[in-house]
């Protein structure tokens, strides 16, 4: 035990923290994409695992072809947008249930991503190409600043869009589709537009992560939906605790990014504790399951048959 603790190096944790912050800021964009499908449209969109890798694959291959590392990120977003439109088409025009249409797109993207890259992974020749979102410790400050600016931009964009006539119609579609149709809203188009926007954000994050880690891998998006949800939920719990009733919409979006940062800080910390990296996805899934279950169990505790039976039995005991 003592040997374990003495093997932990506080300086290593200090050195790893900026990397966690950078990754959190980048994954925050991904989490905002999940926010659009999961919270605004009430659509559990499984496409994102595929579109995250798609963003990465597109970015790396275009960089290898000599394009500007900023411009390729725009193409990544557009590719993600297309993936979202395919899922929306499967769901609204072909009547396939929401989760299944996402899974179908995700699984087809696995093949598509392999075709884009020609093999399972492709690296950016770091020596020859200067990328702007880099994990190189000398330029990490620049990466963090750039990611922060991008986060502010994405939050501002989503806030603006959801406030417009079109965005309001999209929110109404997620809350009450019957009412929306009665108000003349084409709920099918709203879902397709929302999925396109959500996956554009996810693929953008995928492209940036590929630049950050210096390569794209066909499996890099695996489980990203769970990480996105983790960020979303951690953000919501923190916002509820810290801001409470005065929570407005911008703050709610900002807390989604803070949720992603907290997730990656914890990730860095747990790795520093020498937790095996292979088990991180298991840990993430457990954290998400707990956070999703807590509100349900809380409700159940105050409002359940077995609880009533226990209370009645106790009252009976007292009488006897």
């Amino acid at each position, binding site marked *: 035990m003592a040997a374990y603790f003495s093997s932990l190096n506080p300086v290593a944790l200090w050195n790893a923290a900026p990397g966690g912050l950078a990754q959190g800021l980048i994954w925050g964009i991904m989490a905002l994409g999940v926010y659009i499908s999961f919270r605004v449209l009430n659509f559990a969109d499984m496409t994102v695992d595929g579109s995250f890798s798609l963003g990465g694959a597109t970015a790396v291959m275009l960089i290898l072809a000599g394009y500007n590392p900023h411009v390729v990120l725009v193409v990544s977003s557009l590719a993600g947008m297309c993936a979202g439109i395919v899922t929306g088409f499967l769901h609204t025009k072909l009547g396939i249930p929401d989760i299944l249409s996402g899974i179908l797109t995700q699984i087809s993207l696995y093949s598509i991503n392999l075709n884009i890259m020609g093999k399972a992974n492709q690296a950016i020749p770091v020596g020859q190409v200067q990328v702007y979102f880099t994990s190189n410790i000398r330029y990490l400050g620049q990466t963090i600043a750039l990611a922060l600016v991008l986060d502010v931009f994405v939050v501002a964009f989503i806030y603006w*869009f959801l*406030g*417009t*006539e*079109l*965005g*309001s*119609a999209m*929110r*109404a579609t997620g*809350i*009450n589709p*019957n*009412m*929306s*149709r*009665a*108000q*003349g*809203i*084409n*709920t099918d188009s709203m879902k397709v537009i929302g999925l396109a926007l959500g996956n554009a954000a996810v693929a953008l994050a995928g492209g940036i992560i590929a630049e950050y880690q210096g390569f794209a891998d066909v499996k890099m998006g695996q489980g990203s939906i769970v990480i996105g949800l983790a960020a979303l939920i951690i953000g919501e719990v923190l916002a509820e605790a810290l801001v409470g009733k005065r929570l407005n919409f911008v703050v709610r979006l900002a807390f989604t990014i803070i949720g992603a940062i907290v997730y990656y800080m914890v990730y860095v910390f747990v790795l520093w504790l020498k937790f095996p990296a292979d088990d991180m996805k298991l840990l993430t899934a457990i954290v998400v399951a707990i956070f999703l279950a807590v509100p349900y169990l809380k409700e159940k505790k105050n409002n359940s048959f077995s609880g009533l039976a226990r209370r009645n039995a106790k009252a009976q005991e007292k009488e006897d």
Partner: protein
Amino acid sequence: MLEIRNICKTFNPGTINEKKALDDVSLTLADGEFCTVIGGNGAGKSTIMNAVAGVWPVDTGSIIVDGTDISGLSEYQRAPYFGRVFQDPMTGTAADMWIEENMALASRRGKRRTLRWGVNRKEREEYRKLLKSLDLGLEYRMTSKVGLLSGGQRQALTLLMATMRKPKVLLLDEHTAALDPKTAAKVLEATDRVVNENHLTTLMVTHNMKDAINHGNRLIMMSDGRIIFDVSGEEKKKLKVADLLEKFEEAGGEVSDRMALS
């Protein structure tokens, strides 16, 4: 204003649950006519409402509003013609959005939704005036979520939203059935007021015979997917609940407890 021509609808055709819900129904409402629809369970009164609103397409027949055949349009495409209030107070509004946001959605019924801001200051003032006319104090709660309102408040708001852009036809589908009697009376009073003020052509489904007699200037009774009784003007004013029950039994309909007791 509203013309329904020989519409038929069969649910689950070819199965053991096959049900002929509308059997060659025709009905014409003149401009400004306020028609109540009454009938037992499964008579087809909500079905005719859904057929007009376009929840699903009818099997045969056509629906014409103000000279335009709309039977080939989907639900959202024909929304510009109708204001709708539903039986369930949860159905007519978006619970997780503000009162003013809900009203802004309704005020854009039938308009292109653009990237302009969802609600502007001028509109907000108009909404405040409209809400004030409801006399429920909602004008002070415009940035409250609609989910926080009571069932009666939500129905009153839905009614307001259905009529703030004047619809060609107002469709009320048992919109007071889920409310307590006192609140129901208030919502009906508001209905009468808004229909009269705007001279609205209205179709109102109800299971309450007294309401059907006391409101509107025309009454139709349905049974087994057909209109079996159609009365308007002076004749309707003289109508009694007993007359309706008699008519109903004549047609071989079963009087449900809900109808008899109300």
